């Protein structure tokens, strides 16, 4: 059974139809890369899965629970899928540890002591146990993004959505973040990643989705999609003729 079932999803901003009927089923443990040009609707799709945007038509079902836009359902949905953003979005007034503890205590009502233990464990998992007391300001971009991953993991989601999580990083910091993601993939975490790291998509992902103008233009195993692009749009995107 699929963990995330996206069926015929349409999304409009005013007259601009950004998603024109997207259907993708994602099984538990799958690592799906979403590639495509800027403006093709990749971010919008992830934001719909997390309920940051409402959908106009179709359905999104996560672990058997239908997406409905009221606060109770949204919260249930968001406890199942975590999200990592391009700009990290750490809470600047809290330490790394505080960032990882906050939502556990506020949303899940975990006692402070337990939340702290989980936070230390999660920061350790991304290689930042020693930065527990550092403020986001004092961390490099790569470290901030790893804290953001730890923060999402602390909620014990069934899947993580990653929206170009290395795009805002200096090139030399990309690898440390991808290494963490790769490890998560190896541990069986379900991942949906919008990415421009084609090599990473090829090596780590189980499926690649090429989006074009609000549609799934091609979908398949990375070796097929990258080696045998069938449409001119994908060939052009990949720069092969």
């Amino acid at each position, binding site marked *: 059974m699929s963990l995330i079932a996206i069926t015929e999803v349409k999304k409009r901003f005013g007259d601009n139809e950004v998603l024109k009927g997207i259907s993708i089923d994602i099984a538990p443990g799958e690592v799906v890369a979403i590639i495509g040009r800027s403006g093709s609707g990749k971010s919008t799709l992830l934001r719909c899965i997390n309920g*940051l945007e409402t959908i106009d038509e179709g359905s999104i079902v996560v672990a058997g629970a239908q997406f409905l836009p009221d606060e109770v359902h949204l919260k249930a949905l968001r406890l199942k899928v975590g999200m990592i953003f391009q700009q990290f979005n750490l809470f600047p007034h809290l330490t790394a540890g505080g960032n990882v503890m906050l939502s556990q205590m*506020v949303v899940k009502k975990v006692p402070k002591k337990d939340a702290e233990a989980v936070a230390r464990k999660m920061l350790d998992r991304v290689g930042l146990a020693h930065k527990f007391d550092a403020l986001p300001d004092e961390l490099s971009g790569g470290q901030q993004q790893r804290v953001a991953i730890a*923060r999402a993991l602390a909620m014990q989601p069934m899947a993580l959505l990653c929206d170009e999580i290395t795009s805002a990083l200096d090139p030399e910091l990309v690898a440390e973040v991808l290494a963490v993601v790769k490890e998560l993939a190896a541990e069986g975490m379900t991942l949906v990643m919008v990415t421009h790291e084609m090599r990473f998509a090829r090596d780590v992902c189980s499926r690649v989705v090429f989006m074009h103008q609000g549609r799934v233009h091609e979908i398949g195993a990375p070796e097929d999609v990258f080696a045998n692009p069938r449409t001119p749009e994908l060939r052009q995107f990949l720069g092969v003729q």
Partner: protein
Amino acid sequence: MTEFSFWDILRNLLLAARWTVVLSLVSFIGGGIVGAALLFLRIGGRRGIQLLSRGYIQLFQGTPLLMQLFLAFFGLGLFGIDVPAWLAACVALVLWTAAFLAEIWRGCVESIAKGQWEASASLGMGYLQQMRYVILPQALKVAVPPTVGFSVQVVKGTALTSIIGFVELSKAGSIVTNATFQPFTVYGLVALIYFALCWPLSKSSQLLERKLNVAHRNH
């Protein structure tokens, strides 16, 4: 007729200045509480409620405080409710202050990056939790200088309540003038007392702002 010495004048004015201070504090604290409620409704309430609180803010920002005082004082009188001057003064000033503070604070909340809302939402927080733990702690820092700066307007605003007969510093000034026929001395002192109340506020607002800007630049 008794002679008023300079010290008699000053003493009387200072005694009345206490009421200016009390009225300012009541307006500022009451206005802060009402303003905070308005802020929450203005940002996160249902659409109808958002419009309502926006209408409130525009109404109170778009009419003279003097009219609001008159309406609170005479308006309720029309319904046979006898409103003492102090009560009308407090009500009008609280409602007026609330409108301005809500608008100042809204600007501060909106200066917080959208990503903060999205990250906290994606972690499962509801609106009140986002405000309480993520947005307000950041917005508060930005809000302190303009809020302290606005308190100067509140202190000066209390002077208008003399018109409906509330005896604060300005009203005491005209009473003492009538008794002493020394308007220049009396109003000079009144102005000095206002200045002594307001200057530290505006100065600290400036200092806070500069300090905050420096802190920002270091980021």
